[in-house]
């Protein structure tokens, strides 16, 4: 009987009951719920900055044609907007009035040039509001000059209804791309991609520091006298992986639940996903599971070896920072692949084991890549896992009883050869 199940169980149960694990799980749930309610909250917050009334002093230097009448027209339509025409006043006097009465600002008009004079150029909300007013008035002004009706103006802004229809070479007709569905797929892919990225970093670190902890508490010595280093390594990797899976099932369920409720949060704001999720994207989630596991095993074995090379927990971060770089690069590669999932860059990146778990996953969810590419990517990942765990287990075996100074890379290579 292998001892791996016993090791996995210890790893899992001793951590799952720990305050740190329960706390991070709860905080994660709170963050997800919080983020999904963030846009409405932000909207409410920012709306408090928008002034309820804008009192604007205007000095118009152009006598012939001006935006001014249209501003006045707008002020009659909109509540809280007051325009005081002080044309002919000295600019200094007008500005003094603004300061004395604490008005929104002084607007200087000179033909097509409008200048806002204000004591507070940093008040972005107010200044943007004024900019909008002026440009609205300007549209009316130019439309009036050209003699356009309101309907004509409308049609100017919505001249063409743009759609996309994807037709495969062998297809007759193809299907029209459902914009909402595509947005949802993108948002979901982005969300799950971010989850893989987080999982690799979080659990990779947990594996590395777990190994270093076992070294520094010297339990390793008892363990290696009975358990093979490979078994020890796999026990740790699987145990931590199981913890991660539980945590991520909880987090992703929270995220999806929020999405079903139409609380798409920041993702929605960033990608324009505003409607509630229509159906559970089961295949995306299964692909996520596959690449989560593949990516995790690949990186975790390397993290385990890294943890075995240090003798104190404090040194772990130095060693793993390099590995984190790889994960970050993979994440950005996947991010770039979002823009064009079938580009040669994306295809290449989905075949390199360091980036594949993230890039290939992103491509599958977004672009339906050829099955062959998916298969090759998975096979490459599996092969890399075998090679990675083999090399790592050798380093691990040598590293776990190595105390004192961290060995140099050259020494590690020598140890591997020996």
């Amino acid at each position, binding site marked *: *009987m292998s*001892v791996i199940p*016993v*090791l996995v169980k*210890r790893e899992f149960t*001793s951590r799952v009951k*720990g305050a740190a694990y329960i706390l991070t799980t709860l905080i994660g749930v709170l963050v997800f719920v919080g983020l999904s309610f963030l846009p409405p909250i932000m909207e409410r917050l920012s709306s408090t900055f928008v002034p309820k009334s804008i009192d604007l002093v205007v000095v118009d230097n152009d006598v012939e044609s001006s935006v001014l009448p249209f501003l006045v027209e707008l002020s009659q339509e909109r509540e809280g907007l007051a325009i005081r025409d002080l044309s002919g006043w000295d600019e200094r006097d007008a500005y003094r009035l603004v300061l004395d009465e604490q008005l929104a600002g002084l607007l200087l008009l000179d033909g097509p040039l409008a200048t806002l004079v204000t004591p507070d150029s940093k008040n972005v909300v107010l200044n943007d509001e004024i900019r909008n007013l002026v440009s609205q008035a300007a549209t009316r002004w130019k439309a009036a000059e050209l003699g356009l009706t309101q309907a004509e103006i409308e049609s100017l802004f919505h001249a063409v209804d743009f759609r996309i229809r994807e037709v495969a070479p062998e297809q007759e007709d193809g299907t029209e791309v459902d914009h909402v569905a595509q947005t949802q797929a993108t948002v979901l892919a982005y969300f799950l991609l971010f989850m893989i990225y987080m999982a690799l970093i979080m659990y990779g670190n947990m594996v590395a520091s777990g190994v270093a902890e*076992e070294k520094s*508490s*010297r*339990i*390793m*010595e*008892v*363990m*290696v*006298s*009975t*358990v093979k280093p490979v078994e020890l390594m796999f026990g740790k990797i699987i145990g931590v992986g199981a913890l991660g899976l539980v945590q991520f099932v909880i987090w992703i369920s929270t995220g999806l639940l929020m999405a079903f409720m139409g609380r798409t949060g920041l993702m929605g704001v960033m990608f324009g996903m505003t409607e509630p999720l229509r159906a559970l994207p089961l295949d995306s989630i299964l692909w996520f599971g596959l690449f989560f596991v593949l990516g995790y095993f690949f990186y975790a074995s390397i993290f385990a070896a890294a943890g075995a090379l240090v003798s104190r927990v404090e040194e772990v971060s130095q060693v793993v920072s390099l590995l984190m770089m790889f994960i970050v690069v993979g994440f950005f590669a996947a991010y770039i692949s979002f823009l064009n999932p079938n580009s040669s860059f994306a295809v290449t990146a989905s075949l390199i084991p360091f980036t594949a778990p993230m890039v290939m996953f992103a491509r599958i969810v977004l672009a339906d890549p050829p099955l062959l590419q998916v298969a090759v990517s998975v096979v490459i990942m599996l092969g890399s896992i075998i090679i990675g765990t083999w090399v790592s287990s050798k380093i691990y075996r040598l590293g776990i*009883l190595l105390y004192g100074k961290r060995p140099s890379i050259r020494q590690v290579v020598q140890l591997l050869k020996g």
Partner: protein
Amino acid sequence: MSLVVAEITKRFRDVTAVDHLSFTVREGSLFGFLGPNGAGKTTTMRVTLGILKPDEGSVTWQGRPMDRWGVGFYGYLPEERGLYPKMRVAEHLEFLGRIHGLDKLKARRETARWLDRFELGQVRSKRIEELSKGNQQKVQVIGTMLHDPQLLILDEPFAGLDPVNTALLKEVLLEAHGQGKTIIFSSHRMDQVEEICQDIALINRGRLVLHGNLREIKKSMGRQILRLSLEGNSVFWAKIPGLQLLVERADYLEFRLAEGVDPNHVLKEAMDAGQVIRFELVEPSLDQIFVEKVGEGA
């Protein structure tokens, strides 16, 4: 039928920790493995257990290489103690039992039994980190014996134990010895080794210095230690050549007799000098042998 360490050599980069070391441990014996700090004891034990691979030589138990024997046939107490600090005592021991091949039920039963034996019943659900050093040490010792191994390899098992627990551990070791287990342990405390071991090996700088039955070793060293107590001229010995004062105790003096010095001659001189109260020739203590042998090598 024994543990045979044959010509093992282990080098670390340019340091030779163990240098062509050979010794035999009889099955069922209590074997003391001695040496000064840095002599290579821990390395030898690690090689014996297969944690480290020797550069040369081999270790066999009953004629078969050590790695052919499955998990659970030996118990190892490393010098650097290590337990998972966050785990609870009983939980930890059950885990150690399980990785040494016990099934769940047996692991639980043995844990309970050994916790009682070592009077740790009331801390069974405490975390390891909450225990005193001595109690952690006891938990670790239990961890090496829980699965009823045939061979026990204990690196400094008495370090950090108070006299009560030292006596308890001694009792447990003698009990295991009575059950026919083979026990190897290293120690700095020669009195403990002297008290319970039959055989010893003394190493220094990775090489064997002394090896064999403790009694025979002592015998072969000769009765060269003289304990003398007399009333009268107590400095008479200064004029006898070959008599070296080792210790001056409250009630007697201890001398070393050089080769060729006749004890009878010393006795005569002593009787001339006054009233002899005590005149005793004794074997050297293991402590003295240790100092002498290790000192020679230095």
